[in-house]
């Protein structure tokens, strides 16, 4: 069993780093095989699910971004040791979630991506989730490699920079993605009116 897992990990790595076409093709077939029913449609060009990165959740599970496919995803980048903007971003996320009608709540996934993966271990993320009473499945906390995090921020147009061992400067942006991972809306700034963001989610969610 352990060996099998090792093979899978190696394969995932191979997928990650494959450049040439032939290996890409191989990857495609295996990936389609893994995709769940109803999610088999081709991924649009602008979808974040084109990113091959792997992430670890607050529960220590390894996931691909693609596993979020099929839900409306509301995403924000934070770091758990942040004292200034992040609590407000967390509050903004909670505030958005509250305004989504009950019948649509199940179709929305809220994702916090750490910009400080070296500090934000799954345990830290878990504690952060607990502290903020976000232990429900609809709240997902992710941590990736430094490189994947940088790349993901580039996709979201989130700029960030470490300014001391404990602190980062970062743009405060909440992004909404549709069920196929295409960006539908972005809200920039802290404590801004989130009416449009909420509307975007409601329009997308089923």
């Amino acid at each position: 069993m352990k060996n099998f897992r090792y093979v899978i990990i190696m394969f995932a790595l191979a997928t990650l780093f494959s450049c040439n076409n032939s290996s890409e093709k191989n990857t495609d077939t295996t990936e389609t095989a893994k995709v769940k029913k109803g999610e088999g449609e081709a991924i649009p060009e602008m979808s974040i699910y084109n990113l091959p990165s792997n992430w670890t959740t607050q529960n220590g599970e390894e996931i691909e971004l693609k596993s979020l496919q099929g839900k409306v995803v509301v995403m924000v980048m934070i770091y758990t040791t942040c004292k200034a903007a992040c609590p407000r971003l967390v509050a903004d996320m909670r505030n958005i979630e509250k305004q989504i009608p009950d019948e649509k709540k199940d179709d929305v996934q809220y994702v916090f991506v750490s910009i400080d993966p070296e500090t934000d271990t799954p345990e830290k993320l878990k504690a952060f989730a607990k502290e903020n009473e976000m232990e429900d499945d609809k709240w997902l906390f992710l941590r990736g490699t430094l490189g994947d995090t940088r790349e993901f921020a580039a996709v979201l147009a989130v700029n960030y920079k470490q300014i001391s061992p404990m602190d980062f400067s970062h743009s405060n942006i909440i992004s909404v993605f549709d069920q196929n991972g295409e960006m539908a809306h972005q809200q920039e700034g802290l404590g801004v009116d989130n009416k449009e963001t909420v509307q975007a989610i409601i329009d997308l969610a089923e």
Partner: protein
Amino acid sequence: MKIYSTALFLLLSLFCEVTAQNDKMVLVKGGVYLPLYGAEDKVVKIEPFKMDVLPVSNSDYLKFVQENPQWKKSNIKRLFADESYLTKWKNDETFIGLPNAPVTTVSWFAAKKYCECQGKRLPTMDEWEFAAMANEDVPDAREIETYNQYILGWYETPKTYNNPIGETFKNYWGIYDLHGLVWEWTLDFNSVLISGESRKDVDKDSNLFCGSAAIGASDLMNYAAFMRYAFRGSMKARYSSQNLGFRCAKDVEN
């Protein structure tokens, strides 16, 4: 960790078409420097690294897209490059201009992938800035008038991106074209947190940037560097630009 990186390396060599191109690298001995836009008065330590002597050329890049067709102009996913990607190319395999002119109009994703396929990576912004402080003779020429005049003179010269690589000066480290040819992508270009057009308006958008008050130009006189940071700050990873190319870097193996 070591096993992990060895595994990565093996995989990289297995799955990328690694063709030795214009890939001569030199060692840049690390050191400390005070970046223009760093944390307040904080020097940054640069570990030793290797950097390509030359930027990636048109013919280098052609070889890359031939070997990795998903990065061809007509195949690239829009997530990774907008419409301006390889805009000057007549078709998937025909560039305009000199074979040894620097490749430009490539997105950050494409530049990053190119370097990964060579078993390299993009230089970090600090590495790039550190290497680029050098003139012909000294590693840090930022206070030397001719050095700054050269850069500012270049900013005023149109269309240098059409020139061949390797014809500007060879700097202290043995690297060409960090100034005088094209601007270059860096791995963490998106760590620039300046906005607007003024040099001092970092506070203006305090809603957008948390902790922005902590970021100030360490040396506002450094106009040449300011231009580079401002340009980086204006870019997005899928954008391309006619005067923006790239080169690769690498960690020093122990």
